[in-house]
């Protein structure tokens, strides 16, 4: 077992032991390396196509440290543009969202159209012939692509396609996207919060079935107070639950859950008057997808982690959550609710209600998660305790959702990218 202090992980498959060096959570040099080897190399989630439904619609936001504009051009194409004037650098989009034909830099009035092309330069005759407008459009990341509405960007020109990158995660994104016949949408309202903790602690936490009962006992007692019966039930029914390594560092937990699901899994607190409607929606899924896939979509919950920093938890509602490190011990988190576009006002209200019982910085669960991550980070001040243990279920043939297979899948990929002596893609590019 090589437990050298220089290593980030210790992965002993024979013994069934997996350890992570806590330096990965605390070391500023590790974060600098992550920016180069992870955030500049992987596909990073930018937003959802429903956030810019019409030509000219835009959202300006920070994506992994980059101020960007997510914009639908007058040609209907969705672009990601780096929000900095190619002249002297000022941000050309100063609003969080809106609709615009052009973005005009307020500093010297250079003007770009909704495709990012430079269309106006005051006093252009003062420039030499070598100055060409077409060279000076807003810069886009080298790669931008969309999988079923989820828009990603990649700063590595030589990266694999988004399709290949997503690997096994596509199947699980499909289970979310298929919940609508016309498309999913991000609901208005962004939960913008933070945690005084390393960003990878939130990766681990977002699909950690082991912490559910101890950390969230207040949520489970709330459920039982409103009449959801847990007697004889674990968090998951063993026969209908699994943890899957989806490749490329992505992983998922899929399980039969006790809580209601607004898509089509009725529980008593939703109200007797709604039961027939839920059954009708369920029948429609049965028709579209057959009984087995319909059951999967409607009744099972999924905690999906897309490497490195996108979480789509399709649980008592669907949350899309992404987060970025600011320093080794502080991250910014953004979360949204995702819902079928065609959902009725009444169903949508129920969905948001169900969302807030558990999720978000004022929910009955997320604040306690943030508390635990911050507590871990404070604990790491004890540098003498150098390793964390992620060995749970390692020798099991079929690890359960309360094991840690999914967390190891993340760390193995992370370690591979962080320790490759030469970045394969950099070689390919050269």
């Amino acid at each position, binding site marked *: 077992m090589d437990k050298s202090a220089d290593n980030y992980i210790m992965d002993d498959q024979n013994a069934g032991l997996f350890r992570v060096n806590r330096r990965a959570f605390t070391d500023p040099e590790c974060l600098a390396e992550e920016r180069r080897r992870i955030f500049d190399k992987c596909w990073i989630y930018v937003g959802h196509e429903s956030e810019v439904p019409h030509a000219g619609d835009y959202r300006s936001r920070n994506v992994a440290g980059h101020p960007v504009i997510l914009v639908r051009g007058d040609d209907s194409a969705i672009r990601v543009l780096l929000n900095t004037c190619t002249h002297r650098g000022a941000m050309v989009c100063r609003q*969080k969202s809106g609709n615009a034909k052009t973005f005009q830099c307020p500093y010297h009035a250079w003007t770009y159209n909704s495709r990012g092309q430079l269309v106006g330069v005051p006093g252009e005759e003062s420039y030499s012939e070598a100055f060409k407008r077409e060279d000076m459009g807003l810069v886009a990341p080298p790669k931008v692509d969309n999988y079923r509405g989820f828009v990603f960007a990649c700063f590595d020109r030589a990266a694999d396609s988004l399709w290949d990158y997503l690997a096994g995660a596509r199947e699980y994104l499909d289970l979310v996207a298929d919940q609508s016949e016309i498309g999913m949408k991000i*609901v*208005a*309202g*962004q*939960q*913008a*919060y*933070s*945690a*005084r903790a390393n960003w990878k602690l939130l990766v681990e936490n977002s699909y950690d079935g082991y912490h559910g009962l101890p*950390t969230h*006992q*207040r949520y489970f*007692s*709330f459920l039982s*107070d*409103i009449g959801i019966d847990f007697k004889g039930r674990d968090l998951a029914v063993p026969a209908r639950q699994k943890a899957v390594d989806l490749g490329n560092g992505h992983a998922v937990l899929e399980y039969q859950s006790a809580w209601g699901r607004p898509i089509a899994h009725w529980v008593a607190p939703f109200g007797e008057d709604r039961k027939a409607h839920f059954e009708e929606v369920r029948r429609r899924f049965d028709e579209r997808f057959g009984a087995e896939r319909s059951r999967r979509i409607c009744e099972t919950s999924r905690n999906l982690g897309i490497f490195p920093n996108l979480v789509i938890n399709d649980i008592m509602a669907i949350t899309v959550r992404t987060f970025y490190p600011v320093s080794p011990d*502080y991250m*910014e988190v953004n979360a*949204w*609710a995702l819902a079928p576009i065609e959902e009725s*006002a009444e169903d*949508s*209200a129920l969905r*948001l*209600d169900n*969302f*807030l*019982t558990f999720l*978000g*910085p*004022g929910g*009955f669960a*997320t*604040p*306690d998660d*943030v*508390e*635990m991550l*911050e507590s871990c980070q*404070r604990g790491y001040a004890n540098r003498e305790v150098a390793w964390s243990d992620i060995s749970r279920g390692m020798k099991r043939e079929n690890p359960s959702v309360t094991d840690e297979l999914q967390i190891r899948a993340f760390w193995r990929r992370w370690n591979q990218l962080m320790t490759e002596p030469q970045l394969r893609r950099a070689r390919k590019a050269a």
Partner: protein
Amino acid sequence: MSTAELPSRIEVEDLLYQEAALLDDWRLEEWLEMLTADAIYQVPPTDVPEGDSRNTLFIIADDAVRIRSRVKQLLGKAAWAENPRSRTRRMIANVRVLGAEGDNILVSANFAVHRMRYESVDTYIGHYDYKLIRDGKALKIRERRAILDNEALRPHGKISFIL
């Protein structure tokens, strides 16, 4: 439509100061007694401060059941984000009695709520929109909406106490 008789600003200030004291002292059961049976408590998202919780993802949108559950959880042992409890100190100012809508008395007040925990101080800044009703001699809170001016819950991370 009948319109409630407006209370004086002093009467409303007394109510809000009493509420702030109960919340800062973690006397949450007594605080619940200041609410009507159907009271709601909301914190809209920082990017849609005027939103409607039926079609907008809020930070908090408690109905009567969830407010009482929230208090029960906070007074229990397993609300880890508040065990150990935060210290809070609320500054309530600029109290205005805006008018009436039927039985509801509309009140607005500014707040700065400081939260101290693990040697960090986080300040929540914004204003409250209240709907109060006259219940016998007393005023009761039917709706309280805490609208944040903070552009994000950063570095606060959460609203784990009653804002």
